[in-house]
């Protein structure tokens, strides 16, 4: 079920009413409801893949208990390995099998040996990368004794399949989300109202920004050989906003929806295009995934403890793995590698934590130096996004080559209307950059003004919203 669909418009208020008015006496019954509606939400897309979530939940629930039951490191390791094998096995089969099989056959073919490529005719289950990472963090945290295993199977299953963030994150840690399923949730007006505002802002980002940009981006990438450099550059900029609007929009709707039900999810995007260097960008972009890789890959690999070489090696590993997490294609690997390259100078100069505050904090405008920093960081990310969007590496290279010629100074021949919508987004988010989301208006006391803003955003969605497209991150 899509957040921007008619079905969801019926689904959400119905669940809300059942949750707060009909089943509000018993927390366990509320969890059963959340579990049932989460499975309905997921099964709406393809009910057959519910079996995967149920199996994965069951394995991790059982492994968690088994790890906790013993003090023997060997046995604990064994159960952790089972959990990892099942989760990574699912990912391997459903997401990466065909990729590895084709790559193997191609590499043999380049050496002169012909192998028959064995590929599986399978569909990638929506959200598999998200919920497998979420459940893996659960068993790893139990193994590390940071978390006690859940003894409430309903709460655990509801945690794994919690519908707002099930298919595209944020990838929640069990330490944050699971305890919220044990406690009685109280309705909080401020929290719920702000949740609705966040949903509205998420819809704006998805329907007005991402979907409008997508229409132009699709045309540009399909016909990039015939377009001027300025059109290609603008197309790449539009893709940068498409993916931001799409993914952060989804996260906003997910977080806002959770707040309606009394849950707090982590912030997943903190206005990443207002970053002064690539390190800051990665602290602000897809935070739940970046911190996941930091905690469960980078630090176990030794992190930054073993000197500069170790730091560089580990940085490249997590960026490349992060790229590969996004999709089974070499383009994503190159995208990750490119970001690691961008990161390298900051690492070598020990400047990767230079900007931990908000840009131009307490000021209305940025200075010239900050302007240069913001623009150069943005342009670097735009170049990297070309690899993310292109179908092949050679297509990405050709696209980028096409961006550097004299026609860069000509007027773009593509639809530039999305620039207006992007302008509205940037303006609003600039003024809200210290907040949790673009429409956080808790300090604005005037109700008529608040309502006028909601109505204005709503009208923008209705008037300028493009034809709905599926969320990009579903494919990951």
């Amino acid at each position, binding site marked *: 079920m899509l957040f921007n*669909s*008619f*079905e969801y418009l019926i689904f959400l208020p119905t669940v809300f009413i059942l949750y707060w008015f009909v089943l509000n006496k018993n927390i366990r019954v509320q969890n059963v409801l959340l579990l049932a509606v989460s499975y309905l939400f997921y099964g709406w897309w393809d009910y057959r893949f519910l079996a995967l979530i149920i199996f994965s939940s069951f394995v991790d629930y059982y492994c968690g208990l088994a790890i906790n039951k013993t003090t023997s490191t060997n046995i604990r390791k064994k159960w952790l390995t089972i959990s990892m094998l099942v989760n990574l096995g699912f990912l391997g089969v459903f997401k990466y099998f065909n990729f590895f099989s084709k790559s193997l056959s191609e590499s043999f073919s380049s050496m002169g040996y012909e192998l028959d490529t064995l590929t599986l005719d399978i569909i990638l289950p929506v959200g598999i990368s998200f919920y497998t990472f979420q459940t893996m963090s659960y068993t790893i945290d139990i193994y590390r004794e940071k978390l006690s295993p859940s003894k409430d199977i309903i709460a655990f299953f509801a945690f794994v399949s919690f519908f707002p963030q099930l298919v595209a994150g944020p990838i929640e840690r069990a330490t944050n989300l699971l305890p919220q399923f044990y406690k009685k949730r109280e309705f909080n007006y401020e929290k*719920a*109202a702000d949740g609705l505002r966040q949903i509205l802002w998420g819809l704006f980002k998805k329907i007005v920004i991402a979907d409008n940009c997508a229409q132009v981006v699709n045309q540009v990438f399909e016909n990039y050989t015939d377009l001027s450099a300025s059109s290609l550059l603008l197309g790449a900029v539009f893709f940068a906003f498409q993916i931001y609007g799409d993914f952060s929009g989804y996260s906003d709707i997910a977080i806002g929806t959770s707040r309606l039900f009394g849950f707090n999810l982590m912030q997943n995007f903190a206005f990443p295009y207002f970053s002064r260097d690539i390190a800051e960008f990665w602290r602000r972009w897809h935070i739940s995934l970046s911190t996941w890789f930091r905690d469960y890959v980078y630090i176990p690999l030794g992190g930054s403890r073993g000197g500069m070489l170790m730091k560089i090696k580990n940085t490249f590993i997590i960026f490349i793995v992060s790229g590969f997490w996004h999709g089974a294609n070499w383009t994503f690997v190159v995208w990750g590698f490119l970001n690691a390259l961008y990161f390298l100078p900051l690492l070598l100069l020990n400047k990767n934590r230079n900007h931990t505050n908000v840009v131009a904090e307490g000021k209305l405008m940025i200075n010239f130096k900050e302007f240069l920093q913001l623009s150069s960081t943005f342009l670097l990310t735009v170049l990297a996004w070309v690899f993310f969007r292109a179908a092949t590496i050679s297509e990405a290279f050709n696209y980028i080559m096409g961006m550097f010629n004299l026609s860069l100074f000509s007027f773009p021949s593509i639809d530039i209307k999305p620039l207006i919508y992007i302008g509205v987004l940037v303006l609003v988010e600039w003024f809200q950059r210290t907040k949790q989301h673009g429409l956080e208006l808790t300090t604005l006391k005037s109700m008529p003004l608040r309502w006028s803003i909601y*109505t204005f955003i*709503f009208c923008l969605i*209705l008037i300028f*919203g493009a034809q*709905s497209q599926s969320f990009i991150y579903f494919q990951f």
Partner: protein
Amino acid sequence: MMKHFIKHSVVFAVGVFLLVFIGLVLPNNNPVRTVDYSLLTKHNLLQQNKQPKVVLTGGSNVIFGFNSQILQDNLNYPVVNHAIHAGYGLKYIMEDVLQFVNKGDVIVLSPEYSHFIGDNYYGKEPLLFSLTVKPSNLKLVSLQQVASVSEFIPQFSFDRIKSFAYNKVKNQLRRTNSEKNYTEFSINKFGDHYTHWDDKSKDLKFYNFNGVVNVAVIEFLNSINSQIKRKGAKFFISFPSLCSSTYKKNKKTIIAIEKKLKKYGDFKILDTPKDHVYEDELFYDTSYHLNGDGVTIRSKKLASELKEQLK
């Protein structure tokens, strides 16, 4: 707290609902109305013609695909071209025409290929246009169709508000609309779109039909066939006209559609997809819309196909 929240949410939702509703019921003040409004004329033609007739229906490949005079001369049956837009969805198109089927009628459907993909046969945004033209047709619309078009309702409503305000200003400035094609006056006495027949062809729009063939559409056509038969009429399917470039691009899907139609369909199919693939030069503006020359060729072809069946 909760009461307060519900009250505010409901007030906001009702406000939005009212705004959308106003857009839906605003009158169309455009001096030249779109071809969707030809539905009323076509209904009149169907109602007035009580004797057995040939009714051509489907998407825009039909309204842009025939010169009914040629068919009428060859078959000695009166002919009505009922088709307007594929976006209404096959379900709506067939249930609309079914209201006017009489004993002895011959119904020839040329569905667009996209009708067989996914849930397209429930209709998309154009269905909303048709319902504003003839609100009483709401009775033909199922819940699945409502769900299928629901995402278009808000924008459709706002477009109508914008158009209403714009035409109000435009009419005051006494501007005239010089549109010739795609209007309610672009159809001849049979219901064919004819005003483009002498026009030069434009840049063609090529299509990609992606997706899985939906067998439910064929089952739906089987039920339509049974209903038509019960009324003492005949039902045939003829493949749509398609330009060769789009055919080449989508050959695999088209063959899959043809195979499934033959395997699951209980109705008579007059031809094969290839029979109605024509050179790109015979098309007007899209892969389905024939120009004057194309219209003549296709009309003669269908006339001979039907003649065989009506012997």
